[in-house]
């Protein structure tokens, strides 16, 4: 069983913080260099998925519970669409971030940062939700006793 390999377990534990940190770097450096919410979300989800692959899905579910995950998906969309609605309160068009800051440049900067956060949340949670559904299915199957164990 892959779960009993001590090298894998130790290496993964060492790698996890680095992966998550890199995801955050991609997220917040997205407006200066390559990257952004989508890539960062995938990287962060990959960290949890890697953890789930080695320590089991139930262990991963302890870090990010499924119920919480299902709420995160719409929350990300709401962060994105909510940013547009905030623009309305400043008297601007939908998703016009210019009035968010003291000048249009800083406003756009802040706006894109929040929107990308919304993208991050939804991509991260959707990736994980897909992983949970597929991985959870094999658990159900193995309970029935028809896997290759």
């Amino acid at each position: 069983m892959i779960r009993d390999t001590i090298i894998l377990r130790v290496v993964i534990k060492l790698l996890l913080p680095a992966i998550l940190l890199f995801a955050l770097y991609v997220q917040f450096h997205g407006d200066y260099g390559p990257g952004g919410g989508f890539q960062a979300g995938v990287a962060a989800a990959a960290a949890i998925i890697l953890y789930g692959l080695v320590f089991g899905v139930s262990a991963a579910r302890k870090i990010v519970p499924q119920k919480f995950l299902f709420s995160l998906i719409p929350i990300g969309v709401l962060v994105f669409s909510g940013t547009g609605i905030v623009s309305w309160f400043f008297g601007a068009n939908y998703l016009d971030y210019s009035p968010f800051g003291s000048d249009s440049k800083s406003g756009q900067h802040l706006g894109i940062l929040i929107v990308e956060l919304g993208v991050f949340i939804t991509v991260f949670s959707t990736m994980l939700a897909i992983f949970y559904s597929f991985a959870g299915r094999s658990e159900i199957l193995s309970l029935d006793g028809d896997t290759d164990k």
Partner: protein
Amino acid sequence: MEFLQEQLPALQVVLPLVAASLCALFRFGYLSWLITLSSSILSFLVAVFLLLRVLEQGIISYEIGGWSPPFGIEYRVDLINAFVLLIVSGVSAVIVPYTQKSISARFDSTEQSWFYCMYLLVLTGLLGVTITGDAFNIFVFLEISSLASYAMIAMGRDRRGLTAAYQYLIMGTIGATFIVIGIGLLWAMTGTLNLYDLAGRLPEIKNTRPVLAALAFLTVGVSLKLALFPLHLWLPNAYAYGPSVASAFLAGTATKVAIYLLLRFFFTIFGGATFFTETPLPEILKILALLAMFAASIVAIFQSNIKRMLAYSSVAQIGFIVLGISYATETSLTGAMTHMFNHAIMKAGLFLLLGAIMFRLGSVKIEALSGIGRKMPLTMAGFVILGLSLIGAPGTAGFISKWYLGLGALEQGEWWILVLIVSASLLTMIYIGRVVEVAYFREPTDEVVQLKEAPSEMLWPAYLLIAAAIYFGFDTSFSADLARQAAVLLVNAVY
């Protein structure tokens, strides 16, 4: 107030999108229904205000994010898409009150929420496709609505819904791929994605090969989405095995939006009727439309599942609409757009009534329905009225649109098309007649004897559509006159 008026185009799409997210967030069935109901009705009101504003002051252009077109994404409402927005949001607003009864009977609270979430996402996507003035945005919204509708169809009572949804997924994705290839080619040739900027640039290069290839890709891709014969194979199963609400909603809206796209691409972007008639498209479309009218109607006659029968009938009715498009004259396009409007009303109504029968009887097999006219008189009477409208009996909405379609053919001196329209309508009479015969002239079976009339929550939305089908058969000042104004814009490629 003035500010709110200016923001209407964005509000049209944002409302259902935010509502869909809220449904997915709370995951509590009844609350989700209330959210769906309120956002659907508000969307309809927004569409009404948009139409009034367009009639009053002409085209509305809205810059998303404050970026001016053609660089930013533009939402642009003219008479053509204001009319389609009204159809889509109107059908949705009528269906939602009906859903609560039919959906809560089958799903637990969380599943109901997912259903409403998907429903609203389909609505978001369809309204988005219609309102946007950006070619790539069209593709994105089309995928939003399509993906959500695959999920919605997979939630059907019948396990065959799963394979139907899968089939639809494959065909729909091929269609979407073709559309995006077409858009990509146009972008490569012109360097713009804004539809109206494209329309300005295409006439100079309209006979280059990539542009013609783009037209071909767009035609096939959109035809897949609107289920033009012989690309219709995904439709019958999807409508037959999905939940009744989903069939009613999709039959009334999804194919109509695809037809709108066809009109928009053919006429507004590629330079009006003059360009369209230079291509071989009119002949191809005319032949396919006639084949659809006859082949699909004949297949419909031999169906034992009435939902499937109506699904094939949809393919045939789409044939009527495409026939109107193929003539590309003011009258025939008036007919096509009016039929789009009327067919949305009739088919949504028929599927709602069938849903009510399914709700009480648990089956829509034709032999299970014997004598049901005595036990569910209101439901079946409604079915007969809408059926007559589908046939095109005078005094119903269906007559008006077929009248214009026939007139369009006569103007071109093709009287034999008129004969074909009438004979295809006779085929409609046969398959509707089969249901009427079984429902009224046979002895009720044991199951049917115990039936009660459909619940009123399910009946009144259907009757609203029935009333509309009769009303628009007499007063055409809204449906046909508006369609004619839109047709003038299309033929002359005014944008």
